[in-house]
């Protein structure tokens, strides 16, 4: 064999070897693809006045058949729904008004009323940002249940492109 043919052959084998590193694809990401009980609906992008608290309504949806505790559950043991912004995001959460929870009782104990969100709910926030564009990854934390089961507390990312003019 021509020795100069060794180089392309080597490159081909290297390419084959490297492509074999994940022959089944990224199984980890498939495992993490379980749908969340709450999803963020909109807005994905907002324009606000620079350096001034500006109202921004954030819309969320609780999956059918589930509920999450409101921001002010009736028992201190229950985990409230909370919303937060990372400190170094360039955007500050000046205010967050959560909607009041709706009364909900499990069929097995109609006397014990819970304060929950179901379906769509809106958090009325006021955001403050310096002039410029900021891609913010906020967090909504909640704890969801159905009529007869509960899931562990969970956080979802809330990505908002904040343009301050």
């Amino acid at each position, binding site marked *: 064999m021509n020795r100069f043919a060794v180089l392309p052959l080597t490159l081909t084998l290297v390419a084959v070897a490297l492509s074999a590193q994940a022959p089944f694809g990224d199984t980890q990401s498939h495992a993490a693809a379980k749908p969340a009980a709450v999803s963020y609906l909109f807005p994905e992008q907002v324009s606000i006045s620079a350096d001034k608290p500006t109202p921004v309504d954030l819309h969320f949806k609780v999956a059918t058949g589930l509920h999450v505790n409101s921001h002010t559950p009736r028992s201190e*043991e229950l985990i409230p729904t909370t919303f937060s912004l990372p400190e170094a995001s360039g955007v500050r959460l000046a205010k967050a008004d959560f909607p009041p929870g709706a009364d909900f009782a499990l069929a*097995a104990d109609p006397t014990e009323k819970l304060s929950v969100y179901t379906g769509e709910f809106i958090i009325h926030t006021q955001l403050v940002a310096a002039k410029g564009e900021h891609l913010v990854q906020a967090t909504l934390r909640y704890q969801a249940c159905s*009529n*007869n089961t*509960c899931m562990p507390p969970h956080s979802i990312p809330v990505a908002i492109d904040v343009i301050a003019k």
Partner: protein
Amino acid sequence: MARKSYNEPSHETGVFDSVKRNVLVVAVVVCVLFLLGLAGWANWQNRKQLAAHQQAIANQAVLVADNGPTGEEVLHMKSPLVGKPAPAFTLATPGGEKVSLASYKGKAVQINFWATWCAPCKIETPWLVELEKQYKPQGFEILAVSVDDLDKDDPKLLAKDIAGVVKGAKDLHIDYPVLIDGDNIAKPYGDVDVYPTSFFIDRSGKIVAASFGLTSKDDLEDNIKKALGEGKS
């Protein structure tokens, strides 16, 4: 006699070049073999991970949101662990005492995954307290495995978290052992992530039934009887 030109390769230079080329070829072949070996090893690792992942999925019984089982369907979920030996574990009580499942051999045991923030658990627990009293003389025990989050990085917060579990158990009048840090054993029990969840273990250490979500006192009692060897299997 003709003189050798400086541009004409000498015999020694030719041999040297040939050796250099051979060394280069051998080096390239060694590299290729190494990369192929690496690829083979990576394949083997991936296959191992995939097998573990598939096993975890096979063992899993979960409540998911849209497109998953509804709350009602969760109640009818089956655990693939039924009929198999209960995974061994050792957990601590809030007071720090170690409790292992192995020490309950010869008894019928219900492992009840619960949390202080779980409203259906609060409805179920009083039933369990009554059933434990009723069947204890026959050798039945309940282990209440709390899955409440524990902030292990901060001793003050950890103490607060543990105190919360103790208060929750006291409020519900739980008088059987409460174990903390239950997330540690959720995986071998099929990635438990709905609460309440219970596994019923017979005297030989085999899981004979599992229940997901708030069922009824009668259903719980039926499963306890199975664990005691009295019920329908």
